[in-house]
């Protein structure tokens, strides 16, 4: 790691005179966290898509999202694999080191799931008579029954792990819990556990469940320590997952580099989507430099073949990972606004006019269109109603209308009612 940090291509962003003769050497330092949803970035390097655009991507593996955020902010990285809410949080000034961050490219959809300990799941089955084919909502409601029991008996409430305060996992876990009638701030204890440690933490009983990205849910279920009770698709199929983050000033001073990068990532994303490439992709991802997990598990994850538990219960999720199809790479600002709505729902942010502007400005479809053209633009515009078409519903049936976020948040029965939450009268 220390060797890599000595190459400082990012200084070019600071020296104005170089812009006249070009944008400096096309070496981009890119931070990533070892997860399957870094596939597009990794494939761009390993299968020649970056080289074809005259770019050298220097991938640097990191250990925490806080590091990725800080290293991007302090110019150690030019671009970074980030959680979709991170640019939104940064633009809203949330977190311990908010620094302007935008995304011109989404790395795809899917990949998350919620896993509970076998012990907790058994108890849900007994308490609520869950069938083997229970869906995500049935599971959440069954957990609510158990949580009520625990409260009545004065037992300790479940401790549940997620990845980061501004993560898809935090909002999806909360969404799922709340849809079942569980208050994530009062009825359970949410903690942060680094993804590679989740399976061990579950096995050791330090946590009773978690929501993280692939391959860690499957790692726990194959080990026989957990049961997968919901996938990201069950909660909201088009929920954004990871994105490519960059500093807006860097994007502005490197327009040509940004465009080449997006062309390379677009080609890599199309390649990653093709099932015939999944074996080659799985081999590379399994490598110690990247995810360092068993290649079989990664192959299953890419194919959406889920082991729900170690007893052989399986489920195949169509398009568990979507790297490109259905405009999966388009950074639609209404998605950023949905993330903002969840931040308001859970008391992380307040609803204000400035907040709306800031949140939407984190997602930059203009940069995407400049690089890839209008052909890659989804219908319905940049700000559209979400979750109102068949096949793309929220698990509780709510519809997100970005033109009235206050009303949208207020309609949730379970939400934070303290502190910075929605007051309804601010916009």
């Amino acid at each position, binding site marked *: 790691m220390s060797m890599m940090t000595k190459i400082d291509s990012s200084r070019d962003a600071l020296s104005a005179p170089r812009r006249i003769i070009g944008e400096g050497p096309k070496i981009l330092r890119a931070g990533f966290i070892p997860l399957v949803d870094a596939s597009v970035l990794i494939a761009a390097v390993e299968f020649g898509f970056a080289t074809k655009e005259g770019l050298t991507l220097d991938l640097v593996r990191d250990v925490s999202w806080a*590091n990725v955020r800080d290293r991007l902010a302090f110019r150690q990285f030019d671009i970074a694999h980030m959680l979709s809410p991170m640019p939104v949080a940064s633009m809203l000034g949330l977190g311990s080191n908010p620094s302007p961050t935008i995304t011109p490219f989404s790395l795809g959809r899917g990949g998350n799931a919620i896993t509970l300990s076998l012990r907790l799941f058994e108890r849900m089955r007994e308490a609520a008579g869950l069938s083997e084919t229970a869906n995500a909502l049935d599971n959440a409601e069954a957990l609510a029954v158990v949580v009520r029991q625990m409260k009545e008996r004065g037992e300790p409430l479940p401790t549940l792990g997620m990845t980061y305060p501004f993560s898809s996992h935090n909002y999806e876990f909360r969404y799922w819990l709340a849809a079942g009638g569980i208050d994530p701030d009062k009825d359970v204890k949410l903690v942060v556990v680094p993804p590679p440690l989740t399976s061990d933490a579950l096995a050791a009983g330090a946590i009773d469940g978690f929501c993280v990205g692939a391959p860690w849910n499957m790692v726990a279920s194959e080990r026989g320590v957990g049961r997968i009770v919901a996938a990201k698709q069950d909660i909201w199929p088009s929920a954004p997952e990871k994105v490519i983050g960059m500093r807006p000033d860097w994007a502005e001073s490197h327009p040509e580099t940004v465009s080449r990068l997006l062309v390379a990532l677009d080609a890599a994303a199309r390649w990653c989507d093709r099932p015939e490439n999944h074996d080659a992709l799985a081999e590379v991802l399994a490598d110690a430099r990247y995810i360092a997990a068993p290649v079989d598990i990664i192959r299953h994850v890419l194919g959406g073949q889920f082991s729900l538990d170690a007893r052989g219960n399986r489920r195949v999720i169509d398009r568990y990972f979507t790297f490109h199809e259905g405009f999966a790479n388009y950074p639609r600002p209404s998605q950023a606004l949905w993330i903002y709505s969840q931040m308001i729902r859970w008391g992380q942010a307040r609803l204000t006019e400035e907040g709306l502007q800031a949140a939407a400005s984190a997602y930059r479809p203009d940069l995407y269109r400049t690089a890839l053209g209008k052909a890659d633009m989804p219908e319905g515009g940049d700000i559209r109603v979400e979750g109102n078409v068949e096949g793309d519903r929220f698990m509780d049936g709510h519809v997100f209308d970005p033109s009235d976020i206050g009303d949208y948040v207020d309609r949730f029965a379970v939400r934070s009612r303290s*502190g910075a939450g929605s007051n309804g009268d601010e916009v």
Partner: protein
Amino acid sequence: MPAPDLTILVIDENAIRASIIEEGLREAGHSKVTVIHEVNGVAKIIETLKPDVIVIDIENPNRDMMEHLFQLTRTVSRPIAMFVDRSDTASIEAAVEAGVSAYVVDGLKKERVKPILDMAVSRFNAFSRLQRELAEAKSALEERKVIERAKGILMKMKGLSEEEAFALLRQSAMNEKKKIAEIAQSVVTAAGLLM
């Protein structure tokens, strides 16, 4: 009037490095220093200790857990910010490069915190240097061992004296433009295959 002593928490899984930092802080006159090596139960420690400054190694994956903690404590009016002076990019880069990250209670005067971070950065760097030197010493020792074994093999197989065996290794290394240790390793490997 001297400012009240700052409460400092050092979180480092590397016990040796942590003690180097702790020593530096005490030398600088800080007496309220707590060092922990694992993050289990860190939430409780932070709650009771109420540190003004937290120094944590950047390779610690539990930084994300701390972020969550601060997000929760934000509501009980204990905001914690990263780094002292956002405009001081040189010292920020030095810190990130050294592998130090820090959380500082908002509103603390930067003159009070900067020396602490500077000290942490220089001690982190000193520790990396120490580790590098140790690794180099180890590999030098390994090289010497391999050369000794290769010499022994050549002496036995070719009936050479010790000086002649070493001269042969050195001559081959010069001819091949390689290090003596590399030639010696080849000799050892080849001997392993042939014998």
